């Protein structure tokens, strides 16, 4: 454990810190613009669609589809092949992520996926996805 004193909480954090704090508390939040009704990811101070500062936090559905994907080829000693993809959330915005729980070469464009928060210790948490079970 570190002997460093715990810093005082920041009273009025910016969008990124609010996002990270929500993730750390187990919630995947994105922004909704009251100015133009767009959903926004990644967290911003101004809406990239209309420029409004009226961005409010909403719980993301966590549902999405794979917009595009690649298999990153790596030697086994470097961790082996892994998936990297861009997921389009049901609300509209996209984010870079990876699909876990299935082989990297089984991840396909248009596959339905669900968000999951991962990360351990002091490192910032982040969002990965799992393929939805076939109906």
């Amino acid at each position: 454990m570190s002997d460093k004193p715990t810093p005082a909480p920041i009273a009025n954090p910016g969008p990124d810190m609010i996002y990270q704090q929500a993730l750390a508390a187990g919630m995947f939040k994105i922004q909704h613009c009251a100015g133009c009704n767009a959903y926004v990811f990644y967290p911003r101070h101004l809406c990239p669609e209309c420029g409004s500062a009226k961005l409010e936090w909403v719980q993301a559905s966590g549902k999405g589809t794979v917009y595009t994907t690649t298999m990153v080829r790596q030697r086994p000693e470097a961790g082996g092949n892994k998936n990297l993809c861009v997921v389009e959330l049901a609300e509209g915005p996209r984010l870079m992520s990876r699909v876990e729980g299935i082989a990297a070469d089984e991840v396909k464009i248009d596959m339905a996926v669900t968000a999951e928060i991962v990360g351990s210790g002091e490192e910032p948490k982040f969002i990965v996805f799992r393929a939805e079970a076939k109906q």
Partner: protein
Amino acid sequence: MSTQGIRGKAAIVGVGISEHGEVPGWSHFELMAQAVERACADAGIKSKDIDGVFAAITPSGLPVSMVSEYLGLQPKVLEGTMLGGSSFVNFLSWAALALDAGLCEVALITYGSNARSSKRRPGGDLVPYESPFGPRLVDGYAMAAARHMYQYGTKREHLAEVAVAARAWARLNPKAMMRDPLTIEDALKSRMIADPLTLLDCCLITDGAGAIIMTRAERAKDYPNKPVYILGAAAEHSHMQIAQMRDLTVTAAARSGPRAFAMAGLKPTDMSLAMLYDAFTINTILFLEDLGFCKKGEGGAFVSGGTIAPGGRLAVNTNGGGLSCLHPGMYGIFLIAEAAIQLRGLAGERQVAGAATAVVHGNGGTLSTQVTAVLGTAETL
């Protein structure tokens, strides 16, 4: 004929390319200075005549200051906007504007890198919402290629055509790094890096430097070489992080191209050659589509059967490109250099007969910044 914007206001009067490929023992700035030495000799000027410096050199934080100090210059115009590999095509606009406004008389655009010998790999900014996934530059391009295949049925064979065409041009360029014969089968068998891109779908990592000397159009005739005029130029951007790119099959070249062609008063079919930043084979296909050489989604079919190879319908990347000639991190300046060499008729075995116009298209980041310029000989003014 259009006279808008910077059309015909300034010209390239000197071109220099350093030793390239593998040049161990030379720093970024030493290679840069060798390119400047050659560009000045080509233009018939002394380096001290340069009074405008336009440079982007990674990892230098203040590359314009470093270049100026290294060359012992006190330029009146210092410009170093970092757009990635397209920066140098972008500098054409700002150098032309500065020259036309009389802010400087002799502009230098330059770049140097020892990326190969120093084993320093080019990389983008660490961005907070992508860095947990550790994307390499190639991965974003691979995802663009995957999406293009999904939407338009583009095949790996189409990507291979681009690599094979680049190699065929490189075989005509004694200075190109990769000159061994290459077939579609070879390209398809190459080691996969990020599906669907193989090693041969990726540009080289080389050492090398380039330098371009520009002056105002009315002074250009006083120099020893055939001037190469800037007829049109435009920059556009669509995103920084690949996940923020709205449509991974359409780059901002679809906006920069039409603007640059409109300024030039010319269209894609008027071009003698196209120099398209081929960091990866998918780039060439995307830019052929976005610049208007073919319809969206038809780039794969367009490049099939050697269309862009020597003897094909459209001369593309005649030096061998980033894929087979050289690519020292940020390649944009070499697009300009090759276009100028072609328009001066000095390209030797790879010369495009009667070349009078060239479109030069730079790409930066992960398909992020797109800058198009149209260049031409005096006859096209």
